[in-house]
């Protein structure tokens, strides 16, 4: 615990080089990112919390094993998101048939930029809005869902999304545009009212 307090001011990259010398520092890296990655996995997969935690463990174990493949010209968080994304998506595809009823109880303000992007006025009933948005996201193909989550919930830049998904920045832009169109299509088809 004390060890991690000492590293609070260290950059991720510095911490990675410390981990490679002394593996005890890995605990500090995990602590730094566990909530963020858990939230991301949760948003991407809509699985139960326990399932998400199992995935997060898998993610951090894989990240540890592959630590030597981390290159300093990428942000550590981006690299970690990439691993999280790969593991979550492959798991998501395996379990797609399983009914998912758990939706994140996210802050409705999180959707502000997303909804204003779609020219949709925000609902007064935040809880309903939240649930409906997750319902629509769940109906979208994984490729659209993942870009929307990364862009509007994780609030990442196109360049970071490009590095996580291993796709060119232009393709990310196209995917986001199509995902938004698809979102509106499902919204209209399912007659879900957000405004």
């Amino acid at each position: 615990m004390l060890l991690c307090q000492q590293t609070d001011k260290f950059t991720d990259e510095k911490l990675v080089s410390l981990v490679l010398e002394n593996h005890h520092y890995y605990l500090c890296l995990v602590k730094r990112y566990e909530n963020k990655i858990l939230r991301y996995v949760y948003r991407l997969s809509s699985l139960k919390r326990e399932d998400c935690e199992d995935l997060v463990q898998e993610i951090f174990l894989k990240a540890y094993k592959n630590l030597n493949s981390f290159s300093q010209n990428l942000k550590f968080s981006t690299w970690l998101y990439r691993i999280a994304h790969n593991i979550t998506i492959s798991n998501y595809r395996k379990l797609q048939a399983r009914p998912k009823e758990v939706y994140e109880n996210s802050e409705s303000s999180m959707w502000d930029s997303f909804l204003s992007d779609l020219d949709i006025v925000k609902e007064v009933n935040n809880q309903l809005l939240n649930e409906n948005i997750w319902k629509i996201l769940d109906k979208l193909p994984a490729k659209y869902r993942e870009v929307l989550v990364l862009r509007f919930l994780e609030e990442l830049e196109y360049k970071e999304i490009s590095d996580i998904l291993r796709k060119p920045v232009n393709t990310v832009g196209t995917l986001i545009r199509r995902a938004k169109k698809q979102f509106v299509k499902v919204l209209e088809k399912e007659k879900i009212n957000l405004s």
Partner: protein
Amino acid sequence: MKKQKESDQEQKSVSQKVWQQISENEVEPLPKWRWQLKELLNWGMFFLSVLLGSISVSIILLELFSADWQFYTNVTNSFFTYLFSVLPYFWIILLIVMVIIAYYRFFQTKKGYRFTGLRVLVFSLLLSFAIGLFLYFANVSFWLYDVTNPYIPKPAVYHIHKYQVWQKVNDGFLAGKVVDFLDNKHLKLRDFENNIWKVNCLNAKMYNMEMIYLGKFIKILGEKVSDDLFQAREVHPWKRNIFDKFVKPSIKIYQMK
């Protein structure tokens, strides 16, 4: 007691669970050389594919520029029939496969994903063409052709159209392998039907080559004088480099190599 232990386990944070797994199983990061080797292999495969693609391009150019476009009417009335019979399919397919492999390998490299598919495809194709053109220009494709030719499958119609044009001796076409030099004016040639011809080369113009030597395949335009004597008017190499057309025809007939 067991339940208590399970409950304790559940209450542990993710970081603690991860740490426990690392410690208990003595997990270690994989060595750096594995990633470096992977990257090296990807680049190696990329360049190998481009190189094989370039070889294909150089031989495709050689085949196309060596085809007898001006004489195809000797064997067929249709230009397209002739075109499809002389296309080097093996090399075209190899080029396509190599470009796909190069494209795929490039994406597997660390930063390959940053480029759009079309850009990578065009880049690998252009690189293959540039190197292929160089190989052709430098006459390396002749050597590559000779080395690979015996092993390359070709459709039967290729042989018919390619060789039949030059089997029409009565119409003034003759081709084959130089098997002997009789004197400064005459050489001996074995055609593709294994007939031996005495060829008179006096005053014949030699195109696209500097010398004739034993074993060289040549094409001759001229006139049949008798059953085993042919009077040459023009002598061309069997395969030629398009850039040789800038070399003026020589009237020097042949030299011993």
